[in-house]
């Protein structure tokens, strides 16, 4: 008999897939909005954008932002109150990050279902922080008059756009690495749907 363990609680799975949809919408509609007046010397390809035209892209962005924010808040509250963050993302020490990063680069880091290595812990904290930065800098761009002090905190309207872009770039880089790792280790995908995974390393054919 194989040993099946709960890898991802239901709350985390729901938040994960809602977030995946929200982030996809926010990135693609955000790229379309960026294209209307690029702050750097390039545009995103039209096929990677959402909304069809600027008005459509903004409608998507300002609809999906509610899902992103509500789901993000739910996830943060769950993570703190249930002890999920403490159990999964802590403790986190710089020396472990260095050691695990070295192992990971040599492709020698073992995968232990249900347990995150120090690099993963650090990256999850980082992407949570980037998400909060994206939301706050987004609010600063959305309401530079009504939320003037927030806008000033991000260096004013024009600079807040750059902060918002940087937060997006960080999140996009995380998503890229995240998807790459799922492709490299496909058995991590199904547990994010079913919640359950095998505690042993080897697959067995179900009878």
């Amino acid at each position, binding site marked *: 008999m194989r040993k099946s363990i709960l890898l*991802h609680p239901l709350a*985390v799975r729901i938040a*994960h897939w809602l977030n995946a949809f929200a982030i*996809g*919408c926010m990135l*693609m509609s955000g790229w379309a*909005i*960026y294209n*209307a*007046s690029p*702050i750097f010397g390039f545009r995103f390809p039209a*096929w990677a*954008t*959402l*909304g*069809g*035209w*600027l*008005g*459509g892209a*903004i*409608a*998507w962005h*300002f*609809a999906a932002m*509610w899902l992103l924010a509500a789901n993000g808040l739910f996830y943060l509250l769950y993570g703190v109150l249930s002890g999920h963050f403490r159990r999964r993302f802590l403790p986190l020490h710089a020396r472990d990050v260095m050691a695990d990063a070295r192992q*990971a680069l040599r*492709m*020698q*880091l*073992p*995968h232990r279902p249900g347990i995150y*290595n120090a690099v*993963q812990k650090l990256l*999850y904290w980082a992407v949570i922080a980037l998400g909060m930065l994206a939301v706050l800098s987004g609010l600063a761009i*959305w*309401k*530079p*008059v*009504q939320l*003037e002090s927030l806008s000033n905190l991000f260096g004013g*309207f*024009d600079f807040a*756009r750059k902060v918002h872009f940087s937060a997006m770039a960080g999140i996009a880089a995380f998503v890229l690495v*995240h*998807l790459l*790792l*799922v*492709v*490299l*280790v*496909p*058995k*991590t*995908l199904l547990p*994010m749907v079913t919640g359950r995974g095998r505690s042993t*390393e*080897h*697959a067995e*054919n179900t009878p």
Partner: protein
Amino acid sequence: MSRQDEKPPRKPAGIRLADHRTALVKLERRLFLRSSLSVGALSLLAGCDLQDNDQVDKVLWAMSRWNDRVQAALFRGDKLAPTYAASQITNPFPFNAFYDEADAPDIDITDWRLEVSGLVRDKKPWTAERLRALPQVAQITRHICIEGWSAIGQWSGVPLKLFLQAVGADMSAKYVGFKCADRYYSSLDMPTALHPQTILALDFGKEPLPTPYGFPLKVRVPTKLGFKNPKHVIALHVSNENPGGYWEDQGYNWFSGV
């Protein structure tokens, strides 16, 4: 959630790749199908652009109306838009419209009148001269375009609140709508119309508004995105029916406060 994987440190005896090939191939197919489905799903959604009234568009329009309400609640009538020094004015100030600069309407000031209608007591049209006889205020504020760029400019003219008082407008009405000489139209919620920085601008810098910037009258609203600042205004009406707007009716968020 991602996981890094690696060959197991020790390879237990008795497990051969051949035994698991079918399962691996199945998983591979499933993953491929999944990723093509999600990319496909998002590209289908990419067709939802507020233009063809399908179910997703209905949700987007409903969310936009929800955003109108949230922004109206966030809006404070006494919160002033930041003002800037003359040295910070953007020069040249960008031209923006739904047509090229050369197509901006040429208006003969001797024929021009501002028509007033709707829930107002005095519907007599206004000449530029009469408008200039009202008290004027000046502002150096940031114009923020929905496209993301912004520019600082100087406008002066009659506070809209003062004008509405002068024509005996029903201040408890919900909307003030504007019509323009170039077929453009837009509208404001009453709290924004009564904001001290919302003005019927006659001057840009120290001169009468040049043609590209809206001669002879532009509504300057520093608490709204640029497209809610109509140029070449020829009519104003006070109403309880939302008059919509050129871009608003196509899908730009109606409130669009900043």
